[in-house]
């Protein structure tokens, strides 16, 4: 059984239909990169999976739980951690408190255990020495790495990453992408919306290409970059535009 089943969902904002009778499954392993032009429904898809947007029709089943049942949202969000394009640390808390607040309050993890886990994750994202820093003492890349660690604190079954490097300069971007590659190597299941094509090539096991709320191609990474890009003009044009 797929871990995330997206079943014929439609999502519109007013008259603008962003996802149109959209279906796709995500397995319990691997990294899927979602590509496509802006405004094509990539971020909306992740937000619908996480229950941050309600779907108009259809359903999304996450590990057996329907997002249409609002009572399931807490569990779904614990199973699917999400990191956003904008870095959103809680400004009143230092780094360590940002990391432990949710496991302590939601999962009822003992504080000492949560701190231990937080320190391990901070070490993993290369920010062990920043546990008492406030968000305004961190660079954009560091904040984003903390946000990833914070999502990982809930031990999610999958991580939804929504253009997490698009607001960062190339250097900071590289820092963050390295962390993602490290997590992928550890076997963390990820759905990533990005425009970083070389990164997608390196990390993804599957590429989903969307346009106008529908899937144009859904293929293993190798196929996408070798076979498909030459056959599908739309994909070829998109990749060329990204490169330039």
């Amino acid at each position, binding site marked *: 059984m797929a871990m995330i089943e997206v079943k014929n969902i439609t999502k519109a904002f007013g008259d603008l239909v962003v996802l149109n009778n959209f279906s796709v499954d995500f397995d319990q392993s691997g990294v899927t990169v979602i590509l496509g032009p802006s405004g094509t429904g990539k971020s909306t898809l992740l937000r619908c999976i996480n*229950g*941050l947007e309600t779907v108009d029709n259809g359903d999304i089943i996450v590990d057996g739980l329907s997002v249409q049942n609002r009572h399931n*949202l*807490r569990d779904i*969000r614990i199973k699917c951690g999400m990191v956003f394009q904008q870095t959103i640390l*809680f*400004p009143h808390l230092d780094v360590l408190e940002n990391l432990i607040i949710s496991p302590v*309050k939601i999962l009822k993890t003992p504080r000492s255990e949560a701190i231990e886990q937080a320190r391990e994750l901070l070490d993993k994202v290369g920010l062990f020495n920043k546990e008492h820093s406030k968000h305004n003492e961190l660079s954009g890349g560091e904040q984003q790495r903390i946000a990833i660690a914070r999502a990982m604190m*809930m031990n999610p079954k999958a991580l939804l990453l929504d253009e997490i490097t698009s607001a960062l300069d190339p250097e900071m971007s590289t820092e963050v992408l390295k962390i993602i590659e490290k997590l992928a190597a550890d076997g963390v299941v990820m759905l990533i919306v990005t425009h970083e094509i070389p990164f997608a090539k390196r990390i993804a096991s599957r590429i989903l290409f969307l346009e106008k709320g529908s899937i144009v191609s859904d293929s293993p990474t190798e196929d996408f970059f070798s076979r498909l890009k030459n056959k599908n003009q739309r994909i070829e044009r998109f990749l060329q535009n990204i490169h330039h």
Partner: protein
Amino acid sequence: MFEQYLNLTYYDIFFFMKAIGMTLWITLVSITFGTIIGFMMGIIRCSHNKLVSAIPLIYIEPLRNSPLITQLFLTYYGLPVVANIVLDAQAAAIITLSLNTGAFFSVLVHNAIKAIPHMQWEAGYALGHGKFSNFKNIIAPQVLRLLIPGAITLYINQLQVSSFVSLISLIDLTKAGHILTLRTMRPFLIYGIVFLLYFAISYPLSKLARRLEKKVAFNF
């Protein structure tokens, strides 16, 4: 002037102390109730339901846009006439000041909640917090930090406007000054003392507000 000060009797000093007690009592009780009322009204004001969010305005707007002295007279002199509710001066003062504080405090709460970026709410939800947990653990601590400096400023203001209760025969600091002035005929000295006493309470609070403002300040 110092000699004149020495001429004040122990009774006068005791009278002043009692009056300070009354001023502080009226102010503390009314800002406590006002804060509770303000929190409730401010939270209701943030409802996504437009009708629900408009309900507190029926209470807030008249109180914010009319003089406190009028509100006080309405409660003390008006209620016995229209509703046969007779309140003693202290009850009338506390009720009026509480409602007045609540109206202003609710605006502070509403503004503070609205100042929290939507993404902060979403980040909390995305981590698995429910509505209550998100508000309690993520949003409310930020709201409180935004609220503290404005709240202290409001409390200082309410301490000062509490002097209006002297007009409904309550012996607060201002009324005590008035009475002692009539007895001693030394208005500059007596009102000077009243002025200094208000200042001695208010100034440390305003310094505290400024310190807290710096301490709890954060950018999103």
